[in-house]
């Protein structure tokens, strides 16, 4: 039937004279026929050549509907039988369609034409391109419907994709129109236009004339327009790379484009972007692109001429140079070799283009030499080779200067090392040719013709030859160098300093005041004068880390020998004394500089740590699999998924006689350590049931012993890839079977060290200072980092030193306060009011290592990370030195690993709690209704709660689902809402209920207890458990058991909130977080949650110390008339008795309410108060809380966070002062209103404040670091900003406050920057007196 219809159509069309209407009707029929007929039938029935000849004519000449039908017919025909495209093409259909499009008389027609062209161009892109379809397709773009717009772009894409060189000019015709489309607000249009332009640029690659043509269409300006003014921040993840790729291609050949890029400020833009992406965990690929773009920017500059260039080009080089500092930072911290390599190449190019004088300046600002040393320490041959090249160029440009700076910064030394290594390598390679350790060649990464298949440019001897060449040039200089320059003196001083420290590491300084003073003088000089100008190289070479640790810890003593407890106590006191001295010096701002010595010291140590790049090898399973979306963290491990494992055959070692042999092959999971395998093997291979204890077996692979601290998998991988730092496992690794031999562990040397430890702990118990009980001090006194570590690794001492410094920074308040109290005791301080700490710690983030963070981030992108592909250094850093890693990296690490501490795990089963297995076995009623959403219910559990009785509902929910591995969602009974909303509300309601007055949980509860008073505990300094006497179990109608239950509930809620990503609204005190994190609290923590009590208790403590000191010294010099009154009041007259302040029912001793505090029993009183407040009074509550968390997951996994971070995790990022509402809740008076410029700056500053800044600001203005429940809105009186009247220079004034009225008096500073500076200064000063003011 179809054939007949077609014949009829053909006949109708053949009638040349036939009227247009008849033709149109025939064509319409044709279209229908084409659309509904089977291709085979058509092929048989239709004379294509005929139609192909006729249709273009209709198209060209026809009126009204005729061309529309003709176009549609073509489209339908090619759609159904693509091979016809060529036929139509032959008969001029494309020209006709194109002309119609260009004629632009009818949108419907144009759209049909587009469709037809789309079909044809799919088949014959080249021909269509030559006929100018590309430009034509975009001709009427703005008038097309959205779907046709996409089609037009699709046509262009098809046409320009990989077109022939000869056709490029034609393709370029589409460029102007495409450039216009870049301004489109539609992201998909923008994206397609970009990709078209990108293809065009790729096509035109290497042809400057084509590229110039592209540039004429203002592509550079438009692209830059998209990026400019923070535009890049809002572009999506596909568009930005598109733009960068486009610019890169254009820049690579067109000098003109490069010039205009520079004129448009591309350097500043790149700087911003690099800064941003170098901090973001997922920015490494963007970083690579940016560096590539930079590289391409220099191509034309390099090729177009030599040094005698126009001034304009020099200006470009200057601009580029401003990025150098940034790039060196990126490279130093780059975990990916490719990023580093690119950075080095870019720097090499900049160096090549710069003049010697310019480079000298650059050395001073960016310290190129230090950067080179760092890069030379990398194992990657490509990086090393490029770095050597750069060194060579630098020497060529300014020999004398760079020779000196190379010597100082260690480049010279590094080159020597490399030379030696290479010689070694060459000789060993002749013996044994390794083939599987070939590293990824990067020679061509930056070249745009990626087609080159030549081998690696770096030959075997290339590095050696280059190193030797540079070495030779050194000798030349040495001969004519005479002046002993500054460098020599500095390094001598540094060496002397550390040698001296080392000499006195064993001296007890407290007994030799002269030596003590001398040492502290020289330390001061070192820290403030010499350290800043010391190079990292000199610093590291002088053994700094080792000597510092020896001096600041007990290590040297322990090494010497351990005699008796008496000595040990003395030693520990000595160490504490040194720590105090050092802390004081390191945190004191020296005159004239704004940086604290500790900050500089930490920077140097981190720099030195970055040189031992190889101690932290990243292990990846395969290339190209690093595709995990950084935002999607699988919080829960899906147990259904088959996890990767290795087949291992365990065989008996040849010499082993006692053990039996083991036959089979065992699948070993990635996370298994030798100890776990031992537990499986031991029962089978042990002949007699003797030998108890751990480490009974020793495993080895090919003769090398496996480390017990690393997983079997990691040991294997590292043994097989010896000599490499970062490892990529190839796929064949998984298929092999490995033979591991075992024998009995004969050497049992463990007890000797542990007995020493127990003695140490015994001594520690006896020391009065309880700060030394904190884990930090424990590791100091043991003289080693906790855990199993290789102490011979070059990074060990650095890590230990950093750990010590981080600790003393964190404990600076305690250490310094303790020192002050001693001073008071000894009479150096007269007045109790002078007990003030004058130093403040450096910000915690200064201890963060970008490199290690990046390495961990890279490792975490590995697909198998959750399965246990976790190199031991990751575990080790997270546990012992978490401060080296960024918060976000640690949080991700926690999310990826927490499933292993879930309580379903065999490793850590809590007593008597239900396991997840039981849970899933018993389906509960809530589960059944969600049958429909089976998929969702796999991951979540719903629970119904009642609003009236929310705490009980919460408690029952936690008993039921507390330890579930699924997410829990909440539904309120009688309400329809479900999902996130109600669940969030539930958590915040529960956390509010737990702050009610009259439930006896928190301090400050009993103070405001007027009968029946409702409301919440107001705690400006955060909530801390209220002590409960161990004797009484109920007070004022509250049962202790109820309080304990509530703490248990709090523990459950906290744990669930953490796992399920919920947010609590509960201002827990820092001290409570410390308890959560397993830190020990002491007397110095009391001021942080109860300043008044804390202050008095500390003053009492000082008095006790003074009394003791006097008693001791009076034996020698009796009758020293010192003041032992409490601020001129006799202690008895304070009328204090032995009950807990504010809680008269809590007797500190039996009959305490009758016992008056006197000078004689003051010590007992202080100790009892501290104990009741921090320990015995709250132990039940705290234990209930901790065990509740432990029922869900192991609480100790949280120890990698600090108090502030815990708060951030639990209470969320957003704050009670939502930034949009700031101006609603702040009042402006006395010369200010909301529109005054200083107020605008002020509000901006407040909005930009980090949480800690906000806290400091609140502390400063209101006297309390925390806002009441409800935030700024419920602050009474309202926060008020008034204008400060100042005489003279306004910008010299400081803001001041009235904490009674919550006034801040703000001078009208001339700029926001100055205001920020002054505010920060005021806040920092205010915080110094935070604990005791």
């Amino acid at each position, binding site marked *: 039937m179809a054939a007949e219809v077609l014949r009829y159509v053909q006949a109708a069309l053949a009638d040349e004279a036939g009227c247009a209407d008849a033709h149109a009707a025939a064509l319409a029929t044709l279209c229908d026929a084409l659309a509904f007929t089977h291709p085979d039938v058509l092929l048989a029935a239709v004379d294509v050549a005929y139609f192909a000849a006729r249709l273009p004519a209709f198209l060209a000449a026809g009126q009204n509907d005729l061309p529309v039908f003709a176009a549609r017919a073509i489209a339908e025909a090619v759609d159904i039988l693509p091979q016809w495209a060529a036929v139509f093409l032959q008969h001029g259909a494309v020209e006709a369609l194109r002309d119609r499009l260009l004629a632009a008389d009818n949108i419907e027609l144009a759209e049909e034409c587009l469709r037809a062209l789309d079909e044809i161009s799919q088949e014959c892109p080249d021909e269509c391109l030559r006929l100018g379809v590309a430009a034509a397709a975009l001709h009427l773009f703005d008038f097309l419907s959205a779907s046709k717009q996409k089609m037009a772009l699709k046509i262009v894409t098809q046409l320009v994709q990989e077109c022939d060189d000869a056709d490029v000019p034609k393709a370029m015709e589409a460029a102007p129109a495409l450039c216009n489309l870049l301004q489109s607000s539609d992201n998909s249009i923008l994206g397609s236009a970009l990709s078209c332009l990108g293809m065009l640029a790729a096509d035109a690659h290497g042809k400057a004339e084509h590229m110039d043509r592209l540039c004429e269409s203002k592509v550079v300006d438009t692209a830059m327009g998209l990026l400019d003014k923070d535009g890049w921040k809002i572009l999506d993840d596909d568009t930005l790379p598109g733009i960068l790729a486009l610019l890169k291609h254009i820049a690579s050949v067109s000098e003109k484009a490069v010039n205009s890029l520079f004129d448009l400020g591309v350097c500043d833009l790149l700087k911003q972007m690099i800064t941003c992406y170098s901090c973001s965990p997922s920015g490494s690929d963007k970083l690579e692109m940016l560096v590539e773009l930079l590289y391409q920017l220099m191509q034309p500059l390099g090729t177009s001429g030599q040094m005698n260039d126009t001034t304009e080009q020099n200006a470009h080089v200057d601009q580029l140079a401003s990025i150098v500092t940034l790039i060196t930072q990126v490279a130093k911290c780059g975990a990916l070799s490719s990023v580093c390599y690119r950075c080095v190449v870019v720097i090499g190019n900049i160096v090549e283009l710069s003049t010697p004088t310019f480079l000298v300046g650059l050395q001073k600002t960016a310290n190129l030499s230090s950067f080179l040393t760092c890069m030379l320490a990398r194992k990657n041959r490509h990086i090393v080779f490029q770095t050597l090249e750069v060194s060579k160029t630098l020497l060529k440009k300014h020999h004398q200067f760079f020779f000196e700076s190379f010597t100082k910064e260690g480049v010279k030394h590094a080159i020597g090392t490399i030379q030696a290594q290479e010689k070694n390598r060459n000789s060993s390679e002749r013996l044994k040719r390794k083939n599987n350790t070939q590293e990824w060649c990067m020679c061509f990464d930056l070249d745009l013709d990626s087609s080159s298949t030549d081998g690696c440019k770096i030959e075997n001897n290339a590095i050696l030859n280059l190193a030797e060449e540079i070495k030779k040039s050194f000798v030349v200089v040495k001969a004519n160098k005479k002046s002993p320059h500054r460098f020599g003196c500095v390094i001598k001083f540094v060496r002397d300093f550390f040698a001296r420290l080392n000499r006195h590491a064993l001296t007890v300084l407290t007994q030799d005041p002269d030596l003590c003073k001398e040492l502290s003088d020289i330390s001061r000089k070192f820290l403030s004068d010499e350290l800043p100008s010391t190079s990292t190289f000199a610093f590291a070479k002088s053994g700094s880390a080792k000597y510092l640790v020896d001096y600041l810890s007990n290590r040297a003593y322990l090494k010497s020998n351990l005699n008796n407890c008496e000595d040990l106590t003395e030693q520990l006191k000595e160490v504490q004394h040194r720590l105090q001295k050092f802390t004081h010096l390191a945190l004191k701002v020296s005159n004239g500089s704004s940086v604290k010595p500790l900050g500089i010291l930490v920077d140097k140590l981190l720099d030195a740590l970055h040189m031992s790049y190889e101690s932290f090898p990243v292990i990846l399973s395969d290339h190209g699999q690093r595709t995990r979306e950084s935002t999607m963290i699988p919080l829960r491990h899906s147990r259904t998924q088959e996890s990767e494992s290795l087949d291992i055959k365990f065989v008996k070692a040849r010499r082993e006689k006692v053990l039996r042999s083991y036959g089979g092959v065992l699948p070993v999971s990635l996370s298994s350590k030798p100890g776990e395998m031992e537990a499986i093997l031991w029962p089978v291979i042990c002949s007699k049931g003797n030998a108890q204890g751990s480490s009974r077996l020793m495993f080895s692979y090919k003769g090398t012993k496996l480390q017990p601290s690393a997983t079997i998998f990691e040991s294997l991988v590292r043994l097989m890839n010896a000599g490499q730092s970062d490892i990529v496992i190839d796929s064949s690794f998984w298929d092999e079977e490995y033979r591991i031999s075992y024998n009995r562990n004969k050497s049992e040397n463990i007890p000797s060290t542990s007995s020493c430890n127990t003695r140490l702990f015994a001594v520690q118990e006896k020391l009065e200072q309880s700060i030394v009980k904190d884990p930090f001090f424990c590791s100091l006194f043991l003289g080693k980092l906790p855990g199993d570590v290789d102490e011979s690794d070059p990074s060990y001492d650095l890590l230990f030193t950093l750990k010590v410094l981080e600790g003393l920074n964190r404990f600076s308040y305690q250490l310094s306060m303790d020192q002050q109290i001693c001073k008071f005791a000894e009479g150096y301080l007269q007045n109790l009011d002078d007990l003030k700490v004058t130093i403040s710690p450096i910000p915690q983030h200064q201890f963060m290592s970008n490199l290690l963070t990046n390495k961990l981030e890279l490792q975490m992108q590995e697909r198998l990370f959750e399965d246990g592909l976790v190199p031991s250094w990751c575990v080790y850093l997270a546990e012992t030195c978490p401060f080296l890693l960024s918060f976000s990296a640690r949080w991700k690490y926690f999310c990826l690993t927490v499933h292993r501490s879930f309580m379903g795990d065999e490793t850590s089963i809590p007593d008597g709690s239900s396991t997840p297995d039981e849970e899933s076995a018993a389906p509960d009623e809530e589960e059944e209704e969600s049958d429909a959403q089976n998929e969702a219910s796999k991951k979540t559990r719903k629970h119904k709660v009642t609003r009236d009785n929310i705490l009980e509902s919460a408690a029952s929910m936690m008993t039921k689902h507390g330890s579930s591995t699924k997410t829990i969602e909440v539904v309120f009974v009688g309400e329809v809402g479900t999902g996130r909303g109600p669940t969030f509300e539930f958590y915040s309601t529960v956390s509010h209920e737990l702050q009610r007055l009259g439930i006896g949980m928190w301090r400050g509860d*009993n*103070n405001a207890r007027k009968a029946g008073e409702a409301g919440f505990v107001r705690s400006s300094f955060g909530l801390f458990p209220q002590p409960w006497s161990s004797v009484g179990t109920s007070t*004022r109608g509250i049962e202790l058991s109820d309080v304990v239950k509530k703490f248990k509930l709090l523990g459950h809620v906290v744990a669930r909130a953490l796992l399920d990503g919920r947010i609590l609204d509960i201002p827990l005190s820092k001290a409570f977080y410390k308890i959560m994190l397993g830190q020990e609290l002491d007397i110095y923590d009391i001021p942080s949650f109860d*300043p*008044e*009590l804390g*202050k*008095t208790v500390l*003053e009492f403590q000082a008095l006790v110390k003074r009394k003791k000191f006097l008693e001791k010294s009076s034996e020698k010099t009796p009758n020293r008339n010192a003041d032992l009154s*409490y*601020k*001129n*009041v*006799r202690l*008895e*007259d*304070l*009328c*204090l*008795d032995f*009950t807990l*302040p*504010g*809680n*008269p*029912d809590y007797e500190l001793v039996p009959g305490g*309410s009758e016992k*008056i505090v006197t000078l004689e029993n003051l010590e007992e009183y202080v100790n009892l108060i501290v104990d009741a407040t921090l320990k015995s009074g709250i132990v039940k509550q705290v234990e209930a809380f901790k065990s509740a968390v432990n029922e869900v997951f192991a609480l100790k996994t949280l120890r990698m966070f600090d108090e502030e971070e815990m708060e951030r995790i639990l209470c969320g990022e957003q704050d009670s002062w939502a930034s949009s509402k700031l101006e609603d809740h702040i009042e402006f008076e*006395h010369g200010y209103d909301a529109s005054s410029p200083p107020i605008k700056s002020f509000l901006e500053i407040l909005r930009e404040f980090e949480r800690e800044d906000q806290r400091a600001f609140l502390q400063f203005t209101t*006297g309390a670091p925390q806002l009441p429940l409800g935030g700024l809105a419920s602050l009474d009186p309202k926060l008020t900003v008034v204008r400060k009247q100042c005489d003279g220079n306004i910008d010299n004034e*400081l803001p*001041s*406050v*009235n*904490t*009674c*009225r919550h*006034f801040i*008096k703000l001078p009208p500073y001339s700029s926001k920057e100055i205001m920020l500076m002054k505010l920060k200064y*005021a806040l920092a*000063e*205010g915080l110094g*007196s935070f604990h005791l*003011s």
Partner: protein
Amino acid sequence: MARGENSESHGSGNVPAAPAAGAASASSGKQAPAAARGADGQSVVRRLQSELMALMMGGDPGVSAFPEGDNIFQWVGTIDGSAATAYEGTSYRLALAFPSDYPYKPPKVRFETPCFHPNVDNHGNICLDILQDKWSSAYDVRTILLSIQSLLGEPNNDSPLNTQAAALWANQEEFRKMVEKLYKPA
């Protein structure tokens, strides 16, 4: 740091004399039996009773205080304006409320009689450092009252609660008029 607070108004010469030695024992004689212990802190009661004795024995001119009714935690104090100040001849009533952890925490002190003063607001709230973060357990009712008395004559005009009063301070004559105008003795 330029924290707007009143400078502490008593030097070493103005330190409270130790309460009479007999005070403590006198109060201990009055101790409630153990059964009566409960809601109110005995330690605080003892201390307050001792302070009361000291106040009555001490005889400081122009300041006095006494518990209000049966509640030892609520006191009423009076201070007379010092001679040769704008407050000469006036007498102000104050309310003192002691917390259960007194003397670790300061009492809340408020003017009951309306007082026109740069550091006193319309509700009688006082801005005085020793009642806030400069509080020390060594202070007592007597020191507080003496401090407030001296604050009357030596206001801290840098951080006023009552800006009108602060502005007027320079003109003592006008200031005196305002003080008298607003003075409404009970």
